[in-house]
């Protein structure tokens, strides 16, 4: 009798531990995303906000907003290249064409770009996934510039 109780209690204990472990793992991921986003916010303020606005709203037809989830999804790798090397060709965002050139930001590191992209896509866009350092590194290699 006593033995059975022990087994049941132990299994419940193990289960609780397991659940806790799983949930803590999940929140670890989102904590890291949040950390990236916080770092990204600081960099955004000094490198992007003048043109693209504090809420990523852009400015009239001069500078595009950073809220087009569809563009983010379809150009996930290209975004790193745009930040590092700027953009000469026109861009269509929310169906509107923007022709102004975007200046390059050679001073931003791969990790800086990962922070900024995580901030932009999770705060102005609806993404919940992180841009990892590795991903940006690969993307920049593939830019071909």
């Amino acid at each position, binding site marked *: 009798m006593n033995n059975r109780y022990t087994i049941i209690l132990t299994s419940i204990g193990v289960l609780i531990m397991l659940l806790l472990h799983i949930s803590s793992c999940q929140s670890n991921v989102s904590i890291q995303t949040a950390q990236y986003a916080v770092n990204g916010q600081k960099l955004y303020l000094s490198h992007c906000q003048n043109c693209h606005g504090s809420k990523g709203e852009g400015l*009239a037809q001069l500078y595009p907003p950073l809220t087009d989830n569809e563009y983010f999804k379809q150009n996930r790798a290209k975004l790193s290249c745009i930040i590092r090397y700027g953009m000469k060709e026109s861009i269509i965002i929310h169906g509107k064409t923007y022709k102004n050139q975007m200046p390059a930001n050679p001073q931003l590191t791969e990790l800086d770009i990962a922070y900024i992209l995580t901030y932009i896509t999770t705060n102005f866009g609806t993404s919940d996934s992180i841009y990892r350092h590795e991903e940006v590194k690969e993307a920049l290699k593939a830019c071909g510039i």
Partner: protein
Amino acid sequence: MRKLFFAGMIACIAFTACQSTSTTLPIIGQRDAVQKEIDGKIVTDTIYHRIPAFSFLNQDSVLISDKNFDQKIYVANFFFTHCPSICPTMQRNLLKAYEKYKNDERISFLSHSIDFKYDQPHVLKEYATNLGVNNEQWQFVTGSKAAIYSLADQYFVYTKEDSTVAGGYDHSGYLVLVDHDKHIRGAYDGTNKEQVSQLLKDIDILLKEYE
């Protein structure tokens, strides 16, 4: 203790100085006293700093001058279309004022380009259109380096061609409020939210002078 007292006093003065409790705006700049003879009597008159006469090409390649701003108050600033630093924020904020007073003939806006090489009228036109400016109330002008930069001094706005800064030109982001007599009545940091809302309040105060 004494230091603390002084610090407190300076803070008080600074605080009260910033509050615009008075209903008229000051006239900014150096003033001179001149003595004139009127009807045989010697009278002392105060000469205030004024924006001198100017003429520049605007975004429609039309020559405009200070006469275009007669009987109006206006807000002036200095920018360039490819400016990657403070200009977008400054123009974003000035756009708010433009939209608030759109089609109000009592007020105009005047942006001088300090990039005399690149910002030709058609570049300014495209910029204005993209910014959403579609009437003559907001003028974007270009002129020779000497003319634009020396006029900036008259507005007390710092401008300098400098290859070491982003975009190639260094300048301060003041929005300068000018009255019918071309006297400067206020200067506001166009990148600072609080100062921009103060500008909107002061525009109303200045407009009341001419009612």
